[in-house]
């Protein structure tokens, strides 16, 4: 990770978050309690800020990181299925969003079980009850729901793609691969629902797949938290993904 950088998302990047996220979704944001710390590996050795949970390094870090994102997605789609837009949506959109809910809840609960099995020190397991703030989403509005879904799915794709290099165990990389391609399938479907006949190329548009390389997004944790942080109330840090 970067040198001697300690980012407090609450203090420093909310304004930027707001701007970036507004660009994606057109939605207003709530404040965020998320902290993202990046510490110098061989200097102060700081792993946590104020006793806040740190996701850890290597396999443990990635498992916790993905678990946080899957908790976020599952919570979002739970709210979607409780909302009035979904209740009155057309059959296609209703079915797609219900599938996405099913998949994300399954992913979330798989990470819970996997982390319990793999991470032997229980104090290193991300809590399963992260709190979220969806006050910026209007669950009665089709466009608010779909644009938030797109932002979360695209962010998920970028998060998994960017975190592949932190994974040390081959089987876990394959498992991450099994999940990320489903997130990409989701993202394409949601993008095509949003754009309809106005942009048939949006499923893998030039805004998300680089035109001249044909490569999808791969995000650093800092970028992921910039996108997703505004929804996350429970603070945690990811200080050293690669591990010293």
């Amino acid at each position, binding site marked *: 990770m970067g040198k001697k950088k300690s980012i407090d998302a609450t203090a420093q990047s909310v304004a930027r978050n707001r701007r970036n996220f507004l660009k994606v979704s057109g939605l207003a944001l709530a404040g965020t309690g998320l902290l993202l710390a990046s510490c110098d590996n061989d200097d102060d050795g700081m792993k946590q800020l104020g006793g806040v949970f740190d996701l850890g390094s290597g396999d443990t870090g990635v498992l916790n990181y993905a678990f946080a994102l899957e908790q976020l997605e599952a919570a979002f789609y739970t709210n979607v299925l409780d909302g009035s837009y979904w209740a009155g949506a057309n059959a296609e959109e209703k079915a797609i969003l219900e599938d996405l*809910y099913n998949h994300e809840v399954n992913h979330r609960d798989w990470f819970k079980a996997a982390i319990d099995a793999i991470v032997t020190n229980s104090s290193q397991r991300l809590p399963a009850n992260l709190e979220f703030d969806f006050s910026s989403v209007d669950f009665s509005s089709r466009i608010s729901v779909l644009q938030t879904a797109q932002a979360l799915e695209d962010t998920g794709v970028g998060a998994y793609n960017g975190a*592949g290099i932190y994974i040390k165990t081959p089987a*876990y990389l*394959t*498992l991450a691969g099994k999940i990320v*391609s*489903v*997130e990409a*399938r989701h993202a*394409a479907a949601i993008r095509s629902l949003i754009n309809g006949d106005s942009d048939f190329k949006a499923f893998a548009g030039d805004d998300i797949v680089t035109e001249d390389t044909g490569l999808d997004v791969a995000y650093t944790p800092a970028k992921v938290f910039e996108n997703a942080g505004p929804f996350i109330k429970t603070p945690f840090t990811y200080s050293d993904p690669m591990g010293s």
Partner: protein
Amino acid sequence: MNIIKFLDEFTTEKLQAPMSSRREMFGQLGNISKKAAMLAVPFGLATAGNKAQAQEVGDVPAIFNLALTLEYLEAEFYMKALESGVLSSNAKARAIYEQISQHEDAHVAFLKQALGSAAIDKPTFDFTAGGNFDPFMEDTSTSVDTAYTQLLILAQAFEDTGVRAYKGQAANLIGQGNLLTAALQIHSVEARHASEIRRLRGLEGWITRNITGIPDLGVQAANEGVALVYEGEQNTTQGGIDVTTLGSGNPFSLDASTQAYDEPMNGETASTIASLFIVS
């Protein structure tokens, strides 16, 4: 290297055997081309000296040549589809094929650059698979509707295969830094394509059990090839955990539990599928 010879070699156990050190890796690279290994350095092999590389690595040129084979196949398929006129009266399908075509061309260019002189030459493809299909309406007796149906079926099979093939090789790229990330970035683009093509066919964007969503093609070899594309997708055990037992309700139904995870495909199966369309 001759493509058929390459694909044969790909199916040998050699590729699956991990190599334990940087020295050994470059020793094995010599099987393909030492010079190529040096050319590949700017794209990530240069990181082979740092600490993350202490772990085992796979045969990168072979892995990337398999990927290149699939990308050559896809790139030529979409180019010919767009040239064929079959999509000329369908603005939506044409736009989708244009976007995918652009990405597959870019993937070919990226992989060729990464492989340098180790890159295999483009094979000669036969998308009729020995005269069984006519997706480009080359025979005047083929209707646009028939050709269009075949174009979509082939695209779906190629994209879903691509997703599985990249996934199957990802773990062999552990420790390869940017090369691994790039492979993952291509992998998820193939998944976006697969989702859209499937939805264009009226299917869901995700795969339920090992359901192909493709009708009987009337040719045994073709039906077997299609079955191979989806075989194993019905798996419900992820990392030793049966995901259908994690909870109750719809998220843990067999259908949702198989949709939620895409399954990898080994190099041998991917080669077998690609070979159905390769003449030489």
